[in-house]
């Protein structure tokens, strides 16, 4: 019997891994795709057709830096044509005003622009790209002038968390509608750099208070989403709204993934766009069925009343911290590996490790 599974709501299209910024917190894999192995324009357009037919409602053009692909404009235009709501998740630094206007004219609905700090010194140190912060200020202004909705993605870590108030100020000064206070999530390069990135609990508590006060103060003006680092959580996040529940990710080479970090789990088999119809890959592709639903769950998840709320948390984090993908996310205080997570936070957040291993194609520099 074939069980009908609801179609995905959103798709993350990682058009490329190339990016001028070199942020050590990047959640892309250590082994980054090269330009020569990227999926071509026609295959991406076909993928958008398939996604729309399957029931996807939103596409997030991401990367790497999606604007590194000259055909981004063609893809935005096609997304609009097939009825997909298009978001651009960008570092901004490759954009100029003409390109933004062209994207808006072709149907782009929303820009999410990342910031690495409230001023150039720290921001450009984290981004590993001199002049990046100033460029982003310009981009934010243009997005506003063109009239596109803007989300500021404030990426927070130990080095910049004390600038949170100023970053909220920055977002309101742009007229942004949304601010994502995104504490770094520890995947890919971020995991590699965890000891240099992880904030102290004291820093985090202060940030939480700052966010709560700002939400009150800016009600109806700025919506603030707040992502807490899992290392200080008591219950895990509902990662991707559940594995294979509502979301899929296409990596630059066209591999269809349940989440952007899924390749960090050994033994999973990923299909590529074009191998089979997307509807089939989504329905019964081995990577999607592996952790979909509750059938895979061990204790304490399987008897937990939150099993269909957080879906056992994040598989990639279970892999990274507990060494197995098929156990409860160690972020959960009910997980037998939770102490391990707390111990990592206690030892790594002390601030002894400061230097980032900057992201680069070809893997970490020796």
């Amino acid at each position: 019997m074939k069980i009908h599974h609801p179609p995905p709501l959103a798709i993350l299209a990682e058009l490329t891994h190339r990016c001028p910024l070199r942020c050590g917190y990047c959640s892309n894999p250590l082994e980054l795709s090269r330009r020569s192995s990227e999926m071509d324009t026609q295959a991406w357009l076909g993928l958008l057709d398939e996604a729309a037919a399957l029931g996807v409602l939103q596409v997030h053009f991401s990367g790497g830096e999606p604007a590194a692909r000259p055909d981004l404009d063609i893809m935005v235009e096609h997304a609009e044509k097939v009825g997909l709501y298009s978001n651009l998740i960008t570092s901004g630094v490759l954009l100029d005003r003409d390109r933004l206007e062209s994207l808006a004219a072709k149907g782009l609905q929303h820009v999410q622009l990342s910031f690495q700090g409230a001023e150039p010194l720290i921001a450009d140190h984290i981004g590993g790209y001199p002049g990046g912060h100033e460029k982003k200020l310009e981009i934010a202004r243009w997005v506003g002038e063109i009239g596109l909705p803007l989300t500021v993605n404030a990426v927070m870590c130990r080095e910049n968390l004390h600038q949170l108030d100023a970053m909220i100020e920055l977002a309101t000064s742009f007229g942004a509608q949304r601010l994502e206070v995104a504490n770094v999530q520890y995947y890919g390069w971020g995991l590699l750099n965890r000891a240099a990135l992880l904030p102290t609990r004291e820093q985090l508590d202060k940030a939480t208070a700052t966010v709560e006060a700002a939400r009150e103060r800016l009600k109806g003006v700025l919506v603030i989403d707040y992502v807490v680092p899992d290392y200080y959580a008591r219950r895990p996040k509902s990662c991707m709204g559940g594995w294979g529940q509502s979301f899929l990710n296409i990596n630059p080479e066209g591999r269809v993934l349940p989440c952007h970090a899924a390749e960090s789990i050994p033994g999973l088999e990923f299909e590529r766009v074009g191998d089979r119809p997307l509807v089939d890959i989504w329905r019964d592709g081995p990577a999607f069925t592996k952790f979909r639903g509750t059938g895979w769950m061990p204790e304490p998840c399987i008897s937990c009343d939150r099993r269909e709320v957080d879906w056992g948390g994040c598989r990639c984090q279970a892999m990274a911290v507990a060494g197995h993908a098929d156990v409860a996310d160690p972020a959960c205080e009910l997980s037998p590996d939770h102490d391990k997570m707390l111990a990592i936070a206690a030892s790594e957040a002390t601030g002894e490790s400061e230097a980032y291993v900057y992201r680069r194609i070809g893997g970490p520099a020796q």
Partner: protein
Amino acid sequence: MSEPVMIGETSVPAFPRGVRLKHDEVRTQWVILAPERMFVLDDIGLAIMQGVDGEATVSGIVDDLAEKFQAPREQILGDVIEMLQGFADKGVLAA
């Protein structure tokens, strides 16, 4: 910095750029699509949001609904303002 939107009877609600009402054909439901978010509408929500066209006042939308559903205007007014204010607070409705 913009000011919070306060919805009253004389407000003229509108979908700002980047927010659209869409029929989701695969799931046979209506949704509001907004930046990286979506809201599923039930029948009542749809009836209210279909009245939002950037021209009609809240009062006008309520009059239409009262006639359509043959229901007390005061009750509808409360429901409509509550729903529209909720969307305004989420940043997906202008007025």
